[in-house]
């Protein structure tokens, strides 16, 4: 393979990795606080993309307004899902809340099919995202550059919030010890709401960027990325934001490179994530950047 082709793949892998990272963060934050796999997260991502789509095509909003609207509305949507599907089951056995998550996921997907129709829709791409640059034989579409940059910006903001604000500190406290945080006077419900809001916002961001990179929208578009991004979060170390980012990039790059280097395995592209999961669970279940904890008996 030539250097140019390899660089092409790298660029592709980095932008895909950024998208996965954005989605994985939502999973890891929710799991860190609630010990819950938010199966519906991938579908929230889908909703974000569709909101942007309809904002642009049905309400003729300019792309920047549509995107902002999508971020805000999806954040609210994610908070609603928590309120309706997860909060009532907070004190129930784990299996109930997991089934609720799966149920919510299916409900949203099928509502999507009903409301949006199963046929693929074309995501409008503003010219600014379609400019093509050439670097020494490697042609890069502007969106490929915008994705990692935007991801980094939002990541930086998130890291700032988590490490340098009171809310962020409260988030860290709740994920370390739920009960103790509550006893310390932290409004845990508020923190959980905030976490879902932030996670869903990032998912929506991932969604619109995804729409710009892969402009075909279907209601089930969130299923595979959702699953893969949870795996990315596990690989990186569930509960760790850094880990989610690392996991997302490993997954994105790995997927692209595997297909690039071994074209005969293209059909198995989706299996890569699952194989990676199995390997990590066997070798280091706490993830690459996670810590092992022991349960008190």
């Amino acid at each position, binding site marked *: 393979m030539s250097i140019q082709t390899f660089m092409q793949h790298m660029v592709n892998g980095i932008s895909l990795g950024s998208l996965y990272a954005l989605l994985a963060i939502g999973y890891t934050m929710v*799991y860190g606080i609630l*010990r*819950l*796999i938010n199966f519906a997260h991938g579908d929230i991502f889908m909703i974000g993309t569709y909101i942007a789509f309809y904002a642009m095509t049905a309400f003729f909003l300019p792309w920047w307004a549509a995107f902002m609207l999508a971020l805000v509305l999806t954040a609210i949507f994610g908070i609603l899902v928590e309120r309706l*599907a997860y909060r*009532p*089951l907070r004190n*129930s056995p*784990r*299996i*109930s809340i*997991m*089934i*609720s998550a*799966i*149920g*919510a996921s*299916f*409900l949203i997907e*099928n*509502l*999507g*099919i*009903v409301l949006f129709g*199963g046929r693929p829709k074309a995501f409008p791409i503003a010219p600014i995202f379609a400019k093509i640059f050439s670097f020494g034989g490697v042609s890069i579409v502007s969106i490929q550059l915008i994705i990692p940059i935007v991801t980094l910006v939002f990541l930086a903001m998130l890291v700032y919030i988590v490490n340098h604000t009171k809310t962020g500190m409260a988030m860290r406290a709740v994920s370390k010890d739920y009960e103790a945080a509550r006893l310390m006077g932290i409004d845990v419900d508020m923190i959980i709401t905030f976490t879902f809001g932030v996670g869903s916002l990032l998912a929506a961001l991932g969604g619109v960027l995804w729409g710009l990179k892969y402009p075909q929208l279907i*209601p089930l578009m969130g*299923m595979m990325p959702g*699953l893969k991004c*949870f*795996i990315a979060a*596990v690989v990186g170390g569930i509960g760790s934001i850094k880990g989610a980012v690392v996991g997302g990039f490993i997954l994105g790059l790995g997927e692209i490179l595997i297909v690039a280097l071994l074209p005969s395995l293209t*059909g*198995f592209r*989706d*299996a890569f*994530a*699952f*194989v990676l*999961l*199995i390997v990590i*669970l*066997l070798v280091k*279940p706490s993830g690459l950047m996670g810590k092992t904890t022991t349960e008190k*008996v």
Partner: protein
Amino acid sequence: MKKNTKKNILTLTALLLFIGFLTIADKIFDAYEMRIINLAGIYVTLGLGLNLINGFTGLFSLGHAGFMAVGAYTSAILTMSPELKQMNFFLKPILPIFADVQWPFFPALIMAGLMAAIAGALIGAPVLRLNDDYLAIATLGFGEIIRIIFTNTQTLTNGALGLKGLPDFTNIYWSWGTAVVMVVVMVLLVKSSYGRAFKAIRENEIAAEAMGVGLFKHKMMAFVLGSFMAGVGGALLGHLMGTIDPLMFRFLMTFNIVLIVVLGGIGSITGTVISAVVVTVMLEALRFLDGSMDFGFIQIEGIPGMRMVVFSALLMVVILFYQRGLMGTNEFRWEWVTNPKETITNAWKNRKA
């Protein structure tokens, strides 16, 4: 002793009546209705398999569809005639060892279960040591891996094209006969020492281990047995539908079975049986939601996907308000029939519980 013999007589009578019903069923119902009845029976087997793993042993496994696929494809490849195989595998011929194989149904069915059980053992070995959530995702992952493998091994499974023309062995005796056998096995298992051990693992793993129940060994047993049942169910399904393809066995299939188990009551055999029948019938009955409804004077355009919206919403309602499902962990008892007054007064007294 007297109470037991009375119960046994009642059970035997019920069984005979049921067999009688099976024999006359195809005279009462038309082909479409028969299909639904067969499907219900198959879902009983599938639901019981999942309930054994999830409900009785407390292992949240989401890979059931994968084991069904293993069973379905095993039975298909073993029972299809060489000519049929040639016709199907037109893109790439089937692996030579399987080209001329043609088995009768019963051994193929057993083999389907065995292959699924072996898959269960292979997957269970690494995965059963994980905690709840990871187990769910790992089994889901494996279910998907199996499906992806089947989609990409043209010479073994005919890939995405699937297999058409599976011999239609599944009749009411096979579907419901298997269901009855599975119910009997489950009842005997759950009431045995091993059944108690499984439930102990579900209730409190650490205490179970401290009382001498080897966790890995017993989890494997439940998982492998449940996978066997999934394989048998998958094979029966294949021979009812006549065609199978990898897309049939995606996560949606597992979801449907999870739905059945949850609605009926995780940990209740009776619940699973009732729920399987009800859900199968409803899934068919609500098909109209997806297509257009013709009331004669008006026509309402159906909305594709509405059916599953209703079912997902139903699952949500049950899990949010009736967590324990229809039966909770209760089982059918003959006392309900022989002593209805006491049953009703007790249920009324305990309704708050």
